[in-house]
């Protein structure tokens, strides 16, 4: 009964929607440099002391992915400065305040959403969300909230003329610099996750009017596919879904070693020592 009741609580798949969903977490941590440089263990049961390249509390999140070119350069540079500061430290240094990341269950912005900018020169205009960043709780809207910037820095040294482009700047979600648009009256609103009528799925509803804001299909896009049904399998490298889910397990009263020996034709020629049960 407990299992059945637990099964009846619907899951929240919107928590996992992200463009970089399939990036390995160890790789992401390494690009952030929030991995231990040295672990001091063997302390008579006391917890290990870890000396990080950059302590996770000192990591500064940004809108860009940590493995992008400029981001990884800045992370490496910062870890070097971090280590130098630790070596030359004479006083206790307070860490920067922790970045208060919004909970994934409260995040309601996805790529492809129609939003309205609430600050800046484009205040009041509506646009589509281009990318989101849950670490820094901000959003980039297509074509809005822009700043004139150089497209390729240092291109003049390479003989290319300087090119200027209006570059979108991040808009903070936690500070309400950008809000979702209510499909009922095209006005800005706040959203939250709520169970639908039958109670089998979570939907995103406007807090003001109660209308459902559907999740755009662009939210499910990842590095690997646009839609998981249309994932292009690589011949010879990807195992098809049918082969993955095929059930080949045959229960048998035997240990793993016995099963392997039987299957591989390995014969046991030694005579075991006698055992006694008391």
């Amino acid at each position, binding site marked *: 009964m407990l299992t059945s009741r637990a099964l009846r609580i619907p899951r929240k798949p919107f928590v996992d929607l992200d463009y970089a969903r399939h990036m390995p977490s160890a790789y992401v941590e390494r690009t952030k440099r929030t991995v231990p440089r040295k672990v001091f263990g063997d302390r008579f049961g006391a917890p290990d002391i870890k000396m990080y390249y950059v302590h996770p509390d000192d990591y500064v999140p940004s809108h860009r992915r940590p493995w992008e070119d400029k981001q990884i350069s800045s992370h490496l540079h910062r870890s070097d400065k971090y280590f130098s500061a630790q070596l030359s430290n004479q006083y206790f240094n307070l860490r920067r305040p922790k970045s208060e990341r919004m909970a994934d269950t409260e995040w309601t912005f996805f790529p492809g959403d129609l939003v309205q900018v609430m600050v800046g020169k484009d205040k009041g205009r509506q646009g589509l969300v281009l990318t989101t960043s849950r670490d820094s709780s901000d959003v980039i809207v297509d074509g809005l909230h822009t700043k004139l910037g150089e497209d390729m820095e240092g291109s003049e040294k390479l003989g290319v003329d300087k090119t200027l482009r209006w570059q979108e700047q991040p808009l903070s979600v936690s500070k309400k610099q950008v809000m979702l648009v209510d499909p009922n009256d095209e006005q800005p609103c706040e959203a939250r996750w709520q169970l639908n009528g039958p109670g089998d799925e979570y939907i995103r509803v406007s807090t003001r009017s109660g209308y459902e804001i559907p999740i755009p299909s662009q939210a499910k896009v990842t590095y690997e596919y646009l839609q998981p049904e249309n994932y292009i399998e690589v011949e010879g490298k990807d195992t098809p879904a049918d*082969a*993955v889910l095929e059930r080949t*397990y045959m229960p048998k009263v035997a240990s793993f070693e016995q099963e392997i020996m039987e299957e591989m034709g390995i014969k046991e020629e030694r005579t075991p020592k006698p055992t006694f049960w008391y």
Partner: protein
Amino acid sequence: MKLVLVSTRGVRSLNSTNFPAPWPFVKKGAFGQRKIGPMNYEKFKWPGQNREFPELSPKFQKLNPKELHRYTGVQADGFHDEKTGEFVPVKEMRSELVVPNLDGFKLRPYVSYRTDVQIEKRRVAYEKKVLEKGSERLADLHTVEDERWPPPKMSAETLFELAYGDTVRSAYKEGKYGNK
């Protein structure tokens, strides 16, 4: 007593002596009977600060510990008899590679992302069946076992049922478990 050359000009350097271990009670200057516990020289030993010693080498700092004598990096296939001084090969210690035949093997290094779609379909269908029937046991009776997600767990009861269930039932019918 100093193991590392320390600058006499009062200039701080990167020698390990300038960076004592974070805990003070293991080595506080006391040696011998007065030490509290084992002395763990971790600061400047393997592994290094940037993993520059991927493997343990007997040549590191000319330590050559006793346990690493004749260290060849491979598994031994015998032992030296202390009495006769000869090497005794042991058949069980010799590695023998038994390689299965993988012709027509279907699994590949990666798993297609379409598998997630299939799993989601099966999970939704099974959860719907559970809600309809009211319990997992009743839902399992009306579900194709190969289509169930998550797959049924293999428990001791299930294994006993599959291996000895029929035998126990037939013996019970024949009255072999009576009180007589």
